[in-house]
């Protein structure tokens, strides 16, 4: 469904992505693992055009786009089919939980207000926040904020949701509530591409694992295979260090 080929990105003189290929099929939950600085987040941001790659191709629903030369119009069209969940939530600070979800629907997608409200209420209910709809982000815990962000992503009915380290800013308990929501989505067949450090999630929820280091994909395999019989020595070492051997 979504495929990236030969993506390259540098910041200044530092090459962060050195030609990465990645493929996500419909219904897949792909976890991208790897040490800090390996380019995972940059890859995700390039895929949603928050950064412009220097080279590479994006195939979305069978349509190919040049990641460097992609036009504003094409970006808008692709973004309509995707959603993004940030590490630090990035909820609209001047909007309530409900407004955070309806904002994109009403303003960008021109959905009638009543319908947007209904959609938003459903999405918030799904993440267990129907009692906090009128709360501002500053009145919510980190875990609740991230669940609002997931509701915001869901409400747009995207074909794929990108998660950029969605639990890295949360304590273990709050991490648990966010992962529970993500697991539920995975079970319902949502296509997800997740940059994460949560080994439990990668092992038990994701269907595919991509291991990156130093701007390159080291290993890419179905998650069972990845954890049970890693091929490369670097992956074995990584799994040993994080205690997942």
């Amino acid at each position, binding site marked *: 469904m979504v495929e990236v080929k030969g993506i390259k990105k540098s910041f200044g003189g530092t090459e962060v992505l050195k030609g990465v290929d990645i493929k996500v099929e419909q219904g897949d939950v792909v976890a991208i693992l790897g040490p800090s600085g390996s380019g995972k987040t940059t890859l995700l941001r390039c895929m949603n055009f*928050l950064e412009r790659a220097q080279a590479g191709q994006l195939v979305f629903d069978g349509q190919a786009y040049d990641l460097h030369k992609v036009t504003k119009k094409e970006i808008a069209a692709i973004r309509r089919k*995707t959603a993004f969940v940030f590490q630090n939530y990035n909820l609209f600070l001047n909007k309530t939980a409900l407004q955070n979800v309806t904002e994109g629907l009403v303003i960008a997608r021109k959905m009638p207000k009543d319908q947007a409200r209904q959609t938003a209420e459903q999405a918030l209910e799904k993440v267990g926040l129907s009692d906090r709809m009128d709360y501002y982000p*500053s009145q919510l815990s980190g875990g609740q904020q991230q669940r609002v962000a997931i509701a915001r992503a869901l409400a747009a009915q995207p074909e794929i949701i990108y998660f950029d380290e969605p639990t890295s800013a949360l304590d273990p308990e709050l991490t648990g509530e966010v992962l529970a929501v993500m697991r539920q989505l995975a079970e319902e067949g949502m296509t997800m591409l997740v940059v994460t450090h949560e080994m439990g999630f990668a092992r038990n929820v994701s269907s595919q694992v991509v291991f990156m280091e130093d701007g390159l994909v080291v290993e890419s395999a179905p998650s069972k295979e990845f954890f049970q019989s890693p091929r490369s020595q670097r992956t074995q070492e990584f799994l040993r260090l994080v205690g997942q051997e």
Partner: protein
Amino acid sequence: MTERLWEILSDSFTKILVPGLTMTLPLTAIAFFFAMVLAVFMALAQFAGVPVLKQLSRFHIWVFRGTPLLLQLYLVFYGLPGLGVIIDPFPAAVLVFSLNEGAYCAEIVRAALEAVPAGQLEAGYCVGMSYLQTMRRIVLPQAMRTAFPSLANSLIAMMKDTSLASTITVTEMLMSTQRIIARTYEPLALYMEAGIIYLLFSTVLTKLQKLGEKRLSVYTAKESMIILPKRRPQAKWWK
């Protein structure tokens, strides 16, 4: 205090207050309105890096912050007639105060725009909103909340600075006071009286600022925790 002085003071109170209400405050309000329009426009032009407009804004700010306000008033009122441009005192004052105040407020708004986390704009993009939509609905409202106290501060400062308009024959409060002094030779008492009226005006503006800040701060962390909205009844969701 002599009876004569009391008489002068009570007699002149309305004679100073009325020009305050009919000149000082309208001049302040009108000029500040145009200043805000200009400031938001120039701040956005700079924030978005619009070519030409950005340079024009920088140039405007450079000139109006870098020269004395009094000189700007003289230049427009006494200088421009040399080019055949004659402007009445009040419009001339409105023009100069708008341009001058606009320059200062533009910097306040620009700084506030830059203080909005970059993630707000990115989140807007990711829910499909355009740059302009996100700026208008998310970034600018947050920036204006940040800028509000500083802008109110500038407004109060400008209200007092309108006394300079007396030098281009606008009969505002200071000019009216001076006219009474010329008649009565009581500068100490009358300048103090004028000062008290200015103080009255700025006190009202300060109160308004407090009120405005409170209304705008519903979503900021410090205030928002005080009154939490009522929680809605919730169905069980956790597995």
